[in-house]
């Protein structure tokens, strides 16, 4: 069973701080981690490979050269192959342009029986790249997968966690799935795994390998453009209460509750 796992390196979001004066993101000293849901995707891939008795797990990521760290982490966890898609021309890609690169890389390195990815990344939180890649490759896909079971050599049954409960779907291979954290508990890398990862030679590819039209790459190839970054507007006249005035504040809350017939 050949499985591809799409991973993204993201800022360790708990560490992202804003400069209160300049209003910009403080990037210095911000750590980078593998997107947590991609760890669940990798764990599922490794479990399916074990269940099948044979197979190969390939991790793919598009990003700047330092994305290598996330791929080495995946090797330490048990992935067999890693491909880093890096090229200055890829920089600034939106979800469409990112999906274009990942889809082409899958087309060139595949075929795969299954492609797995986290439902969304913690930085962009769009959840769009998985379904876009599937549509570009004309593969059946499912999302919000919180449980899965390979029910036959050719088919997989998934449980999707949606608003009203669970929806079950059966997909035949090849297909693409995006997964939630309920799916499994990602394991920790072993010492042997870490050692292997340090020595492992990663494959890298840029656009000379993918050979996509230049006008479809990166920022200039992205249909969407960020035109402004702003702070949310202050919309309310806040009454502040602290210290000895807290009693007054509590009375104010009670008055508001009465005004709205909530009390």
């Amino acid at each position: 069973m050949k499985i591809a796992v799409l991973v993204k390196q993201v800022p360790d979001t708990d560490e992202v701080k804003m400069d209160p004066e300049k209003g910009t993101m403080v990037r210095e000293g911000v750590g980078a981690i593998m997107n947590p849901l991609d760890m669940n995707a990798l764990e599922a891939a490794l479990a399916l490979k074990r269940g099948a008795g044979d197979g190969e797990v390939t991790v793919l990521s598009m990003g700047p050269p330092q994305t290598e760290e996330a791929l080495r982490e995946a090797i330490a966890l048990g992935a067999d192959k890693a491909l880093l898609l890096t090229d200055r021309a890829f920089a600034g890609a939106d979800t469409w342009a990112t999906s274009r690169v990942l889809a082409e890389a899958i087309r060139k390195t595949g075929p795969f029986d299954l492609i797995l990815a986290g439902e969304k990344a913690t930085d962009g939180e769009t959840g769009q790249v998985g379904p876009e890649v599937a549509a570009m490759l004309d593969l059946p896909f499912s999302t919000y997968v919180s449980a899965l079971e390979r029910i036959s050599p050719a088919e997989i049954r998934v449980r999707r966690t949606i608003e009203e409960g669970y929806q079950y779907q059966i997909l035949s291979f090849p297909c693409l799935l995006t997964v939630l954290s309920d799916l499994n508990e990602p394991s920790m890398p072993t010492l042997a795994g870490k050692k292997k990862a340090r020595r492992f030679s990663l494959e890298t590819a840029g656009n000379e390998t993918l050979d996509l039209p230049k006008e479809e790459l990166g920022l200039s190839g992205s249909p969407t453009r960020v035109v402004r970054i702003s702070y949310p507007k202050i919309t309310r006249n806040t009454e502040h209460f602290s210290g000895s005035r807290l009693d007054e504040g509590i009375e104010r809350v009670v008055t508001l509750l009465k005004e709205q017939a909530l009390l």
Partner: protein
Amino acid sequence: MQTETTRTPSGIFVLGEMRNGHIHSVTLELTGKGRELAAARGCTVTTVLLGGEFKDDPADPIRYGADRILAVNHPSLEHFDQEIIAKVTAHLIETEKPEIVLAPATTAGRTYLPAVAALVNTGLTADCTGLDIDPETGLLLQTRPAIGGNVMATIKTPNHRPQMSTVRPRTFRIPDPEDRTGEVLHPAVPERLFASRIRNDGMEYLEEQGANIQDLDVVISGGKGLKRPESFRLLQELADLLEGGVGASRPTVEAKWIPYPHQVGLSGKVVAPKLYMAVGISGAVQHLAGMQTAQTIVAVNKDPEAPIFRVADVALCGDLFDIVPRLIERIKKEKRS
């Protein structure tokens, strides 16, 4: 690709959401928003309804701002199938050529819309909290929280069509219904588009814990300032007194202090209650996006600089373990009198 100047406004598509044959309220919220954008752009609004059997009148969205309804009924649309709904939607976009497409950022919309974007080769902006028409270019301005939810980004789709956005339910209010006229059309869709490689294998409906916080008048939410999961009991006591529910910030859900259905924010639920109380929540934009349309906001936090205070009507600055019990006692006293 055409440039904006050579193009005449070709209308706004609102992709409705059908659940078990009923028109979900997010359809009306987006139809209302579509109407506002159409007024600014000078174009029409078409609400698209794709479903198995309709239990509601498909003409309903007309009263909320739609000029036309495109209704497609087919047995294979009875259960959500991302492959079919993506293909049928892409087909309607290719035949009707709308310049703007608004869709719900529900699990369904967030699943099939990216596939539609790939099929028709255009951009898609997820979870927009603000939508406007740029008066100079006529382009759709899509605003959403960015960089882990700390700032707002405004996004344009300058050259590709349509310009597509998903919007979380309850981000916009349903407008008051009006006496309007419009037409309900049943477009022909090629039968081959209803074929799928995915098999539906049943639903399991769950009584979601805390699921109803979107329908309550009072929501009391807790953040990491609660220090430990047990502190949510204090919030529950206050919520019970006011017949409300308990919400939570993303970090508390990620720390597994409280289940996901309680999560308020961009990656959780958007709520718009009469009273929203944020206890021990600093107020990341990601959280603010989920509650800032509440009628009254009360924030309790020990940090006088907490961003949550900027969107609050009443800011109570101090120790929540002192303030919340005092508020509970005061409300109990009020109820006794």
